[in-house]
């Protein structure tokens, strides 16, 4: 029994650590309500192309909230650089929406998507 514990406790600890460190790839995916980052980006791109700016503002706010949820989940397994870069892309997107600048808004969303896909990868 003692020998079993001496081996199993460190082994279980290592497995737990691996789960924490590698969980980001799974936890960044949509798991609940309003946390679908790629889905929201897709909808936003479509709305921007249609120039429906009221809807775009609302969806951008939803994207912000969804990102906060995802960051909370992936913070232990993700790199801070990608998280920061996503925040910067979101801030730039807000600016492009204010100016109703289609191309800039789409560029920022594409960049944000890239940061999301590189997160914990």
């Amino acid at each position: 029994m003692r020998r079993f514990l001496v081996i199993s406790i460190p082994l279980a600890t290592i497995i737990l650590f691996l789960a924490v460190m590698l969980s980001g790839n799974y936890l960044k995916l949509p798991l609940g309500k309003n946390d679908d980052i790629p889905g929201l980006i897709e909808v936003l791109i479509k709305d921007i192309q249609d120039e429906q700016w009221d809807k775009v503002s609302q969806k951008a706010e939803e994207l912000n909230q969804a990102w906060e949820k995802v960051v909370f989940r992936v913070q232990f397994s993700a790199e801070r650089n990608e998280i920061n870069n996503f925040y910067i892309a979101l801030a730039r997107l807000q600016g492009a929406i204010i100016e109703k600048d289609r191309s800039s808004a789409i560029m920022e969303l594409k960049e944000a998507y890239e940061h999301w896909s590189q997160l914990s990868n």
Partner: protein
Amino acid sequence: MNEGLVVFVRSIIAFFSLLIFTRIIGKEQISQLTFFDYVLGITIGSIAASLTTDLSSRAWPHWVGLITWAALGYLMEIVTLKWRYASKVLEGEPVIVIMNGKIMEKALKKAKYRISDILELMRNQGVFDPNEVDFAIIESNGRLSILKKAEHLPVTRKDMNIPAQNTGISTELVYDGILIEENLRQLNKDKDWLMSELKAHGINSISEVFLVTLNPEGSIYIDKYDDHITKVTDIGDYKGPF
């Protein structure tokens, strides 16, 4: 993102990973470490430190670095254990620097030691006169082993034909006021015997004693919590904060 919390969790990961890995690879005592073991330890520690605080990258690549270094260290240990030739190449081998009282200059040069280093290491061992030394060997951990000339070796009981008894290793019977019954049983004694011994020393309860040890020859050592020493010798050479 709460940076403090992330560093806290990463610290736990690094701390216990390091603990587990070093328990697997680190059987040697610090004093027996070779130079490579020393470098290995520093590198693994440094990787664990960046795993803890470098939030700009994920914990995972740092952890992979940690486990790779630990695994290679373990592999080296296995290789040197099973393959004597590799052990000589990887860990080095002892070098005789003084043979029959003569300094081996070529061996010194090969080991990259100055004679002043050897004299210093000799002084560390309490040998101040090279005339006393028959053999001196630099071990692979960098320490100097000295065999003195026969005329400088201390006289032993065997030289004087004085009979000697083995004293053996003392076993703790009471530690910090708590009886260790397992050790009592090992020495074929019981609690009544211990109490009678304590009573002979004016002690009525086990809780009064800090330490009791017994060696196989039957010699008992007793230390009470109350030492009755009124004037404690202070070896401090200047007045400190305590």
